[in-house]
């Protein structure tokens, strides 16, 4: 398998990261809530096994989703929900600025990746994209899509420019223009067909909505024009919806 080395090195990197992280200095905070509950795992289903009181100093070991792994003064380690730490204090007595993700982070996002699923001229399409914001309104997107139909499969690679109408709204419409290439491979069960690559241009509109944390919902319509080597250009409409995450 071509990608097995990549995966193995990623695994190795993950293990090495944990080995190296053992002696890292930890962020320390003071509990301001009457008490905090330590769970055995990062989730609602894991039981509470320890309680630390107001005024105690705790070290924040790591974070997973909305849960923080903390170490109390007596050495116990457990997972505390983010809500119980929102009022904790830094060592200088100032409120600890919890690195929570919210709408303001959405507005200041730089990078975004997402995946959308839908219909591309009657074929099922799975699209994956990466995006970079230049201004709050304007961003550039790189799309890789695969359309799997009854008679042919297509792979699309396009570069798009996207204009978001109201970047400070939770849900906002947007417009997009793009260009790229499409490679069409007819099904093997059809006879006397050849693969072909054509240029493609597109215009589209959609809506995106901030959900929570890094999560964004997005739905869009795109009208494509395929510049074929035949006499007529081909027009394909595409509908899709999906989710993206920003960084």
């Amino acid at each position: 398998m071509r990608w097995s080395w990549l995966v193995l090195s990623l695994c190795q990197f993950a293990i090495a990261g944990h080995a190296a992280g053992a002696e890292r200095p930890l962020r320390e905070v003071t509990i301001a809530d009457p008490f905090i509950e330590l769970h055995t795992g990062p989730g609602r289903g894991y039981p509470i096994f320890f309680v630390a009181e107001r005024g105690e100093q705790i070290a924040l070991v790591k974070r997973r989703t909305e849960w923080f792994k903390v170490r109390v003064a007596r050495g116990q380690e457990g997972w505390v929900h983010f809500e119980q730490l929102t009022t904790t204090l830094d060592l200088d007595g100032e409120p600890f600025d919890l690195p929570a993700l919210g709408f303001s982070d959405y507005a200041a996002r730089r990078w975004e990746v997402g995946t959308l699923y839908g219909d591309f001229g009657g074929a099922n399409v799975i699209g994956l994209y990466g995006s970079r914001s230049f201004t709050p309104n304007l961003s550039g997107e790189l799309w890789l899509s695969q359309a799997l139909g009854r008679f042919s499969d297509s792979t699309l690679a396009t570069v798009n420019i996207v204009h978001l109408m109201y970047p400070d709204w939770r849900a906002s419409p947007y417009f997009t223009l793009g260009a790229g290439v499409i490679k069409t491979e007819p099904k093997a069960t059809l006879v006397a067909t050849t693969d072909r690559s054509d240029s493609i241009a597109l215009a589209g509109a959609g809506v995106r909505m901030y959900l929570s944390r890094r999560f964004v919902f997005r739905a869009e319509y795109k009208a494509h024009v395929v510049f074929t080597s035949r006499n007529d250009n081909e027009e394909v409409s595409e509908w899709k919806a999906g989710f993206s995450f920003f960084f």
Partner: protein
Amino acid sequence: MESRVLVLFLASTLAVGSLTGCGRDALVRADEAAQPPVIEPDVERREIDPPRIDTEDFEVGIFAGQLSVEDFGVNTVAGARFAYHVTEGFFVELAAGEADTELTSFERLSGAAQLLTDSEREYSYYNVSLGYNIFPGEGFVGRRRALNMATYVIGGVGKTTFAGDDRFTVNFGVGMRVMPLDWFAVHADLRDHVFDIDLLGQEKTSHNLEAHVGVTFFF
């Protein structure tokens, strides 16, 4: 006449007064600047750079198991997965796997021409799925040891390359994640991959069941 003299006198007095006043002020200031300050502040500014909190929302790992390819036998499958945990409940997973399929019963019994070439017989897939941890909790091994685990449901879309074509594939299933350490997990998964195939003349929906175990690391 008298009033004009008075105005002139007042104006000149004011002018001279302000000039000499300024001059004295400037002299005093220059004097102060030349003298060193009585107390030299000797405070080194502390750079406050609080340690970053390590976030572990990503999971990467490998798996191996058995994949039953409809008409083409039960085969060993191996693959890799990459997941991002969005909340304590939801996660998004990207997975890819590969298997070499066997001969169909027909090919084996008749001994006639083979349906597929060797490269067409390779089954590979990738998918993007959304999972939800429905039963997070502890599992007990013996009397003294508790392990964190979660049972999840997962489903998504993807592509299967088999018999010379790419096929749009829907997958769904259940899985179990057992976590001996909080950055290391062992998975056991049951997955159904569903796609339409027209290889044997007529289009039909094929169900391909996969059972695999795997390990993952959080980072």
